């Protein structure tokens, strides 16, 4: 509506941010066209939040340049602030106040005036299905409701660019689904969204494009499909019954998966291989293992975990946290 014409929603060049010796961002370039949902995927401490805080004018970069909706985050922070919405990692709400009071308060701070604030609040409560709970104090809300109210608060100005910093961290599956739905329909309406997440699945579900962030750098970039292609796609896990048979099973699985980098774990009696043709890899390995008289205890096709994504992209040590796995 009032972005500068002909500009990208977000344009970042050579952005760095250091705290003393510690470098949170080590030179990031990023362009997000309008109407795109862009995911920043990475582990804790990768620099995702630092990035969002700089773009939301909360933090000054050490060096580099960033514009949001065509306005410079350093020189024109007020103009940026009229055009963004921010959903931080924690629900930034007054727990004692009602949902309605929270939204009216924030709407007044966007200078909508008393009537404007009331009207906008009514509209947002209705759209996010919170009208019935509007008079209750926020501390009585469920996690998902709180997050929806938080999201409503970040949409008061109908922002050009919406920043979502780990929007589903700490939510139960139902709350997560609620937030995903809300983000999807915002995206359908054409809002540009920059989303950070630790979960590959979340980025996959929501983002048109994904940047994988590690140690303050973007180490891979592309659509979910691009990345998955580069990540070695799905994995086949085979657990054999007898630990002594792991070594004889490895070449068979390797041949069936047509992959070089098969991982064997003697203790867990597990052989894991990246696969491109899922069904053929599965049926071939089952057949050849059976022919060789190797008893199988369990077999699964699954998406790569974020650890494996990072291992693949960086050849680095695994990151220190768990991610939900999707079993086949």
């Amino acid at each position: 509506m009032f972005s500068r014409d002909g500009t990208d929603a977000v344009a970042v060049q050579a952005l760095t941010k250091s705290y003393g010796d510690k470098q949170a961002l080590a030179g990031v370039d990023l362009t997000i066209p309008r109407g795109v949902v862009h995911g920043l995927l990475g582990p804790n401490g990768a620099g995702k939040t630092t990035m969002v805080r700089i773009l939301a004018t909360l933090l000054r970069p050490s060096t580099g340049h960033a514009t949001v909706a065509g306005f410079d985050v350093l020189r024109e922070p007020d103009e940026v602030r009229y055009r963004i919405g921010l959903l931080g990692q924690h629900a930034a709400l007054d727990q004692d106040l009602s949902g309605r009071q929270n939204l009216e308060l924030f709407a007044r701070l966007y200078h909508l005036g008393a009537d404007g604030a009331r009207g906008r609040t009514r509209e947002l409560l209705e759209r996010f299905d919170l009208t019935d709970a509007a008079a209750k104090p926020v501390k009585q809300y469920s996690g998902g409701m709180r997050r929806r109210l938080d999201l409503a608060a970040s949409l008061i100005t109908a922002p050009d660019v919406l920043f979502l910093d780990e929007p589903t961290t700490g939510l139960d599956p139902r709350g997560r689904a609620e937030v995903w739905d809300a983000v999807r329909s915002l995206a359908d309406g054409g809002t540009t969204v920059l989303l950070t997440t630790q979960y590959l699945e979340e980025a996959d579900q929501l983002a048109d494009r994904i940047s994988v962030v590690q140690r303050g750098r973007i180490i891979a970039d592309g659509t979910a499909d691009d990345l998955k292609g580069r990540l070695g796609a799905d994995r086949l896990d085979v657990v054999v019954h007898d630990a002594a048979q792991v070594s004889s099973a490895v070449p068979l699985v390797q041949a069936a998966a047509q992959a070089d980098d098969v991982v064997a774990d003697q203790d867990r009696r597990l052989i894991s291989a990246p696969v491109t043709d899922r069904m053929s890899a599965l049926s071939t390995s089952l057949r050849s293992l059976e022919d060789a008289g190797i008893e199988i205890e369990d077999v699964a096709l699954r998406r790569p975990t974020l650890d494996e994504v990072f291992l693949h992209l960086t050849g680095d040590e695994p990151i220190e946290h768990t991610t939900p796995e999707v079993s086949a």
Partner: protein
Amino acid sequence: MNDHLTVPGDRPTRTRLAPTPSRSAPTSAAQHVARLLADSATMVRRGLAQWARTPGQLVVGLLFPVMMLVMFAYFLGGGMAVEGGDYPDYLVPGLLALTMAFGLEETMVTLTQDINKGVLDRFRSMPIAESAILVGRSLLDMLRSTIGLLIMIGAGLLVGWRWHGTFAAALGAVALLLLLRFAMLWIGIYLGLVAGKPELVQAVQILVWPVAFLSNAFTSPDTMPGWMGRLAEWNPMSATAGAVRDLFENPNWSAGSWVSDNAVMMAIGWPLALLAIFVPLALRRFAALGK
């Protein structure tokens, strides 16, 4: 361009949120001032709404000094032999000063909560006059302390304290008390911004007690071991308590030291000195939130 947004709902066709009227940042000085006033008013409105939603918390906070007054006047007061007056005549001005000094934690706690919940970040990501966050905090805390002061004066009258001076002098005493509170406000803002952690709030909540008792609020510094007595005399809270006793024409602890002879001057000088130190520190810290 994102003229419209859609958001979820179970309607078959998605409805669109109307865009808000186009707004842009203030350019003239007058517009800046108008925005600061409007945003500060919103911050005050927020605080008032919080009070209205949690009246219990407000009442407990306001009545805490009254409880101290009752404890000291009736539980301990019987054992306090003081010259030239009743113990409440010494005690009430001391407790008024103490109430103001304890305002420090109040400021620190509320600010710390806003920081930790991310509310401060949300405010700062909005096109507000950022100083409205501090102006609003100041107005609310001063309002609350003024109410607390009036309640304590009422409670003091009930336990037998009286002022004997002129009404103008009494107003002067109230002004000095609020000046002390204002200095504590800025120390509280600074500490809240520096510490910003619940553990540090707790440390401050504990440490205010020895600082409060190392003063002339409850007893004469002359009764303390030598160096402690000197420290207690020089405590900013003692300056205000002493000056307030003078202005209410309540008896004061044994005069004679330079500090107690110049109590009113000290009660103006101390808070101003603290403000001269902590206002710039707090403002620098506030501006550094983006660093």
